[in-house]
């Protein structure tokens, strides 16, 4: 169950498909044709199967190769817990929200440690930026996250949050929900490293920053972990704000899927409309307006709106 | 001001220090001078007569190294070239004109590098074009420098 349905295979492929949608939409915006649908799969297969993995001299081997595995397992676990609590199985356990959030934080940390261990200063500059951007978006992320928990009567179980929303309307309907949803969108944009806040791996600038030393299988695993994240995070948003994806009846499932696609489209649009923001600007932006809206939404939630 | 008036005003101003003046056409004129007078003449042409400094070019003539400074007058559309002949090819020297116009800085570095001409007074003659590992004392644009022919026919050329 872990390996097949919600786990590695499903979320991996879903993540890759979403990655392809992103590339296709960006190409469309520039009047270009864009890659065929199977492109991401081929890229990944090439990296995993045929490319040689180079390990630079003087690098802590265990660290360097361990990090991608850590990132992959954390991302898969997070998506499994999320989907199992979400789907009809409803087998969530108490406190699984915290577990999912913690697991979703693991891949960026693993990436960072991998980059530091690769002794390449471009990677270390990228990694230090990743650290800064994490510091920036974690605070508002957790604040915004607490709103659905507060609203659904301090439930730490994903299942309860979904039940609350099924019974009394989606969290996004309320004032505090909308505010925290807005803050959350920016946070996940940074968490996934999409363009406005992707300075850690700024492709033109630090030449794929943190990934610079990785090649072959290690790089493939990292990319897979990232695509699972791309799949898992919007799913988390849907469960927290719009009442989960599948809860039995097909109508609900379609509604959930539509919400999911809407979030992905929002992220891609944000990605394509503005240039990359410098890291200290990103921090000011997160600690300033985003944290404020998140805090405001928590207060509103406490007052019951 | 056409080309004849310009030439006349220069020859009046410098008299005997101008060795020869040859007016090739209504648009081109060449003047020969002593290398030591270069700075005064260039200052007069560039500053007082407000010509534009085109470029300086060195030529490894067989009887010496020629350095030619080209000035163009854009209002009337003609070019005057001032030529200084350096007879001593082993240790050629000429004064720098970078105080007159900063635009000459790069071309003096290039000529120094490719021809080996010293520009006295130009403190910054770092190499401009050639790679750092270029053997010193070898000047590619001198006539005696022959490009080493690579015989790539033989297997595994160097």
């Amino acid at each position: 169950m872990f390996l097949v349905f919600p786990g590695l295979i499903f979320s991996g492929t879903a993540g890759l498909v979403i990655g392809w949608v992103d590339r296709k939409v960006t190409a469309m915006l520039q009047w270009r044709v864009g890659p065929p649908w199977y492109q991401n799969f081929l890229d990944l297969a090439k990296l995993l199967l045929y490319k040689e993995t180079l390990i630079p001299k003087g690098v802590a081997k265990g660290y360097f190769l361990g990090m991608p595995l850590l990132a992959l397992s954390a991302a898969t676990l997070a998506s499994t817990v999320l989907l199992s609590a979400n789907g009809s199985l409803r087998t969530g356990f108490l406190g699984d929200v915290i577990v999912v959030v913690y697991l979703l934080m693991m891949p960026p940390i693993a990436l960072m440690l991998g980059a530091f261990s690769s002794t390449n200063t471009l990677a270390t500059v990228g990694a230090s930026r990743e650290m800064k951007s994490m510091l920036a978006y974690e605070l508002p992320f957790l604040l915004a996250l607490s709103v659905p928990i507060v609203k659904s009567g301090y439930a730490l179980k994903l299942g309860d949050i979904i039940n609350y929303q099924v019974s009394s309307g989606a969290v996004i309907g309320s004032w505090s929900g909308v505010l925290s949803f807005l803050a959350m969108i920016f946070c996940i944009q940074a968490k996934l490293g999409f363009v406005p806040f992707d300075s850690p791996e700024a492709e033109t600038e630090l030449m794929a920053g943190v990934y610079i030393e990785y090649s072959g299988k290690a790089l493939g695993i990292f990319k897979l972990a990232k695509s699972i994240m791309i799949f898992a995070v919007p799913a988390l948003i849907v469960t927290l704000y719009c009442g989960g994806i599948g809860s039995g009846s097909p109508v609900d499932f379609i509604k959930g899927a539509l919400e999911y696609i809407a979030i992905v489209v929002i992220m891609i649009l944000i990605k394509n409309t503005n240039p990359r923001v410098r890291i200290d600007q990103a921090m000011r932006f997160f600690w300033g307006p985003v944290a404020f809206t998140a805090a405001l939404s928590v207060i509103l939630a406490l007052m019951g709106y | 001001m056409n080309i004849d008036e310009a030439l006349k005003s220069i020859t009046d101003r410098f008299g005997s220090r101008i060795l020869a003046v040859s007016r090739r056409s209504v648009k081109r004129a060449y003047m020969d001078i002593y290398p030591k007078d270069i700075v005064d003449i260039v200052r007069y042409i560039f500053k007082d007569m407000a010509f534009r400094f085109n470029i300086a070019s060195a030529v490894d003539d067989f009887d010496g190294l020629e350095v030619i400074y080209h000035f163009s007058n854009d209002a009337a559309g003609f070019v005057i070239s001032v030529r200084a002949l350096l007879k001593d090819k082993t240790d050629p020297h000429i004064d720098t004109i970078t105080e007159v116009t900063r635009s000459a800085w790069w071309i003096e570095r290039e000529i120094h590098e490719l021809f080996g001409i010293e520009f006295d007074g130009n403190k910054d003659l770092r190499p401009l074009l050639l790679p750092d590992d270029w053997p010193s004392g070898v000047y590619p644009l001198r006539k005696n420098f022959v490009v080493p022919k690579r015989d790539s026919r033989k297997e595994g050329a160097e």
Partner: protein
Amino acid sequence: MGLKEIILSKSINVFHLSSGSCNNCDIEILDCLTPRYDLERFGITLVGSIRHADVILCTGSANRLTVPIIKKLYDEMPKPAFVVAFGACGSSRGLFKDSYNTGQPIDEIIPVDAYIPGCPPKPEAIIGGLLKLIEKIKDKNKGKIKG
């Protein structure tokens, strides 16, 4: 055609290395990415780091300063790696053959798999050249060509 050939020939990351070129070829490479000739539809993308690259696109007549750099870059590429000598200068130093500042042609520095002649090669020629390279990738994996 085995799975390996399909994968290796459908997803290619290109690293652009210019060793003293007159930037005509560099502009033509960029032309291939603009809307009219878009290379991304073949799965060919420009990549920043040599670690992620499968193909080096080497333009320019390798002048003396860049020869060591080309060697070092080639050693750092994860195998299977391919090199495309781009344009007349890349293939045979073109017009600048007997200049004092160009060392040797690129194929004496690193092994070259495909040549795209032309000065600058038209985008159609570039795409043609890359397709020839894809053919070579396929043959190489079938063991027809060693190395």
